[in-house]
């Protein structure tokens, strides 16, 4: 890594500026997707998906699920006592940004609890892959880079740790797809490419900003008002 970095640092500041702008954008786009993939495979996601699978398998075998346009996923249960088929809200809301969303889109035809459980199992398997590749893989790679390349990677490691803690605590995706973050990243990348003390300062400052951003998001989402809003949003 040092070779190409030394080469870039010998270039003129104009080239470094262009490179930093491109790097800022690339880090934002790729980083967001990696964070999302790590969140898909987070322990909380795995536990919730497996719990849902267990709940579905425990339902009466003739239970049906069907999508109603504008209503959501309904459950149809036969009540022997009244000899009626009751259709009611299932209370299940698939993760709209999750890796297994496609498994939930089976059309309007009623499907059995076993069918839905099989789809949830596939969702779990995809998340398990994400756990090994992105969640666990992310930590392992960052630790390795911090040991073998530069202690500056510890900043990224701390950020990932705080990010995943906040994600697990709130149950929300925490992403950074905003233009100002691209600008911040580009500025930090430019200072990093310039080298010297500024490079270290830029990395620490950027890390501190994103860690504080995550902590702020965590605090805001955990407030009582936001929790009430989340309940209202989920009810829609």
């Amino acid at each position, binding site marked *: 890594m040092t070779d190409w970095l030394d080469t870039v640092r010998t270039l003129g500041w104009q080239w470094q500026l262009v490179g930093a702008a491109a790097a800022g954008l690339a880090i934002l786009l790729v980083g967001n997707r990696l964070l999302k993939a790590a969140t898909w495979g987070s322990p909380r996601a795995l536990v919730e998906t497996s719990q849902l699978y267990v709940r579905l398998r425990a339902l009466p075998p003739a239970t049906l699920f069907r999508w109603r346009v504008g209503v959501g996923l309904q459950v149809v249960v036969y009540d022997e006592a009244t000899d009626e*088929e009751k259709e009611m809200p299932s209370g299940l809301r698939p993760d709209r940004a999750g890796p297994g969303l496609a498994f939930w889109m089976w059309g309007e035809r009623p499907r059995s609890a076993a069918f839905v459980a099989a789809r949830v199992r596939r969702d779990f398997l995809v998340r398990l892959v994400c756990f090994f590749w992105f969640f666990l893989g992310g930590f392992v790679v960052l630790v390795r880079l911090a040991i073998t390349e530069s202690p500056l990677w510890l900043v990224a490691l701390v950020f990932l740790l705080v990010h995943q803690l906040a994600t697990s605590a709130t149950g929300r995706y925490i992403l950074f797809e905003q233009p100002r973050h691209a600008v911040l990243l580009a500025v930090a990348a430019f200072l990093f490419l310039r080298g010297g003390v500024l490079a270290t300062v830029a990395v620490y400052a950027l890390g501190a900003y994103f860690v504080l951003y995550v902590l702020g998001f965590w605090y805001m989402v955990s407030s009582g008002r936001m929790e009430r809003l989340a309940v209202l949003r989920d009810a829609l």
Partner: protein
Amino acid sequence: MHNHVAEGATVMGHVVQAGTFSGQVHFHYRDQNAPLDLLSLRRWLDRVAEDFRAVAEQDRTGREHGKRLDSTRAVVADPGQESRQRDVIRRLLVAGLCGYLARTRDAAPPPLPEQILLDLVVFALWPVVTARRLPRDWQGELAEITSARLASLVAQARTSWRSGDGTAAETFARALARRSLFPAMSVLFDDLADPRRGGALLTSMALVGGLPEPRTGTARTVFVWAVGIVGGAAAVTVVLDRESQVHRLLEEAIATLPDGSADLDLTELLAEFIDALLEQGGTG
């Protein structure tokens, strides 16, 4: 009015049902009228398979029908076999339905369309009731192509049948007749009208069984096809008569079918693809 079916007796009585069947409904399912259990169904399938191979398995279409027939025979031979779990219940229903249609098409038609509907459902479901072993999720599979209530009733009938109840068929028929079967029937015939679900299987089994080719496309056409084979033109006239109760209840049930139920489920393809990958990974 209370109906009681004594052992071996034929009961012709006035029956009060929950808005579905009313009038002289016949609950005698013994001897010649007994629905085909798995063994009888297997014998019938073996016989028609032999006849079919002798005359019609020369061309490509005939071979496709033959393949579907063979897979259905395999399911009927052992519905509980793990490796053949896919479509087990659908195959049993279609085999039971075609077995019934093939047997009754030359017999005198039942006097009431309600009787035909009840017989269709009883005969179609009886192989499921009498199967010794079924896949683990059979109730869900049956509920998907009929209704949750019907799947529960079949589960009760299976318990009754396995306990050695000789009147299980009559009890089952009476339980069915007390309820509105049109929602479940419309879902079933909708499934059988779709070539990507039960339609292709129904066509193959009908042709192999010497029945006229079903007109797939909508639940209504398959329903009329089945009623026509059993009851002839008179029954079809009643079913198509806009003033008749049967027509009204059928149309009401068909109107509740989900839109686009025949659309290709792309997620099914995706799920199958992932399953294949996982299986490959497991065996590799």
